[in-house]
């Protein structure tokens, strides 16, 4: 079996393939390259959320970009969802096996849900409670609509964002579900002059204040397949910056960890450290040690990719998983880590904690961002990666 890695399909010399696996986000300009691949291959697989549904990069469509799911451009493809996509599933579908049935994520979650109405929405939670459902704590988790997965962010005190949806239009369904859960939260009404009765008010109220970024929280991976109209907000011109603008500060590590590529670990840590430094959030020496380990593992990962060394790649990802929880870096957070990494080291010495959201401009040379009082990213510039 011969596996070839094509990073620049425009310069690719056409040759016949049995199987083509496409990953990464797609723009309408890629149509020519995609047709070239389609003409030369017997079977095509879309691997990962970026390709199947637009993934995290589709959030830029809020600002008028045109990230497109692969199935809108070429036909006869097989989708392997997930962020990250699961290599086991990809191998299985290439071998012609059917993927296992729908196993909801909640069935493997150790937390238990009661679905009582919420009195408030919490954007960060104490990590000591490991039995109550995130949603019951007022901490939005998309697990209700998600399939069982390999990365399992929920095991690292991180709520699910629904990268492997189990139902059609999962974001919209989850919005309805969470909106219902928010039933006890104060909502503004106003008197309607014409109808002489009350109506739902347009003004901001506790409901809208408690979810400053509905799009990023509910539609992080499924914006393009949920039937919402294309966003019309002014773009900054840069796709990556548009993905981040409008997101919440506490969600940033979750998003940068998902970006993939060679630099996602250093980018995540840089974002976190910039914030920590500006707000005097103290970090223990143990935390620093683990972070430095992650950075050196990232260098190893790049080397393994360049050398096409599969074994080293796997060994390195295993080590990253041990510290960061999964390849989405769910365990990494402001102030430390969310879950025990090493039983021999006292967890208290590197535990992350709830931080205050402080308005202001954060600068670190390569990454500069500006957040408003609600913790929403207003502007961001990223100079590398």
């Amino acid at each position, binding site marked *: 079996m011969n596996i070839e890695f094509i990073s620049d399909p425009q310069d690719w010399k056409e040759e016949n393939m049995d199987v083509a696996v496409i990953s990464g986000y797609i723009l309408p300009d890629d149509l020519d390259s995609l047709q070239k691949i389609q003409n030369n291959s017997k079977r095509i697989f879309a691997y990962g959320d970026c390709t199947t549904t637009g993934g995290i990069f589709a959030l830029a469509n*809020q600002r008028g970009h045109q990230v497109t799911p692969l199935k809108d451009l070429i036909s006869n493809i097989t989708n392997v969802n997930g962020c990250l996509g699961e290599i086991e599933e990809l191998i299985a579908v290439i071998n012609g096996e059917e993927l296992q049935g729908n196993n909801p994520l909640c069935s493997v979650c150790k937390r238990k849900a009661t679905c009582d109405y919420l009195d408030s929405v919490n954007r960060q939670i104490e990590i000591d409670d490991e039995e109550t459902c995130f949603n019951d704590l007022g901490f939005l988790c998309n697990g209700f609509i998600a399939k069982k997965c390999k990365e399992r962010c929920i095991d690292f005190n991180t709520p699910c964002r629904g990268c492997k949806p189990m139902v059609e239009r999962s974001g919209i369904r989850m919005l309805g579900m969470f909106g219902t859960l928010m039933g006890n939260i104060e*909502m503004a009404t106003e008197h309607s002059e014409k109808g002489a009765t009350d109506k739902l008010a347009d003004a901001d109220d506790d409901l809208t204040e408690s979810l400053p970024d509905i799009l990023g929280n509910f539609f992080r991976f499924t914006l393009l397949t949920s039937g919402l109209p294309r966003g019309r907000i002014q773009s900054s011109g840069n796709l990556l910056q548009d993905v981040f603008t409008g997101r919440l500060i506490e969600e940033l590590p979750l998003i940068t960890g998902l970006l993939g590529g060679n630099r996602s670990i250093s980018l995540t840590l840089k974002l976190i450290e910039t914030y920590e430094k500006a707000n005097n959030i103290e970090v223990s020496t143990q935390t620093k040690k683990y972070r430095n380990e992650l950075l050196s593992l990232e260098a190893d990962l790049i080397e393994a990719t360049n050398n096409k060394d599969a074994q080293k790649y796997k060994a390195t990802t295993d080590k990253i998983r041990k510290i960061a929880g999964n390849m989405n870096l769910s365990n990494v957070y402001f102030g430390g880590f969310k879950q025990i990494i090493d039983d021999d080291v006292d967890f208290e010495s590197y535990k992350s904690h709830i931080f205050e959201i402080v308005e202001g401009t954060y600068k670190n040379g390569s990454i500069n961002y500006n957040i408003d009082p609600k913790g929403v990213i207003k502007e961001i510039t990223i100079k590398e990666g």
Partner: protein
Amino acid sequence: MSECEVIDEEIKEKIQNIVVFMCNECGQGSANTAGVARMAYEPAIRIVRVQCTGQIGPIQIMDALNNGADAVACVGCCIGACHFFNGNLLSMHRIKLMKKLFKELGYSDQFVNQYTSRAAEGETAVGDFEDIVERLATAIKEEGTIKDGC
């Protein structure tokens, strides 16, 4: 419909279908009362009767909008007067989040709304319809229709 006459003809043409989900109790009740009293209302209003507005959520709203509706509204019982338990409040919570979502995407938040009415008073329902059309016309004038971006 004196309010609608001030609307530019062009905008009026763009308002063809407004799907209004009315609950079986107060909402539909007031529409029936209005019908008995032969009150006129905007022809663009398309009433869909539901048991309770609590049945309406983001899925039904997006289905209507994606299938040609210019706007969607719910008309339910008055606050605290839901004939079941609190269906009208729950749908208001969901619709409020939908409004916020439209704003985040750069659209007007007037494409979805929720009203209340009283079964014994037909004019409450007709007044709500007038308000829906007026708000939608203003929104289209200022920010364009929802189809401009689909």
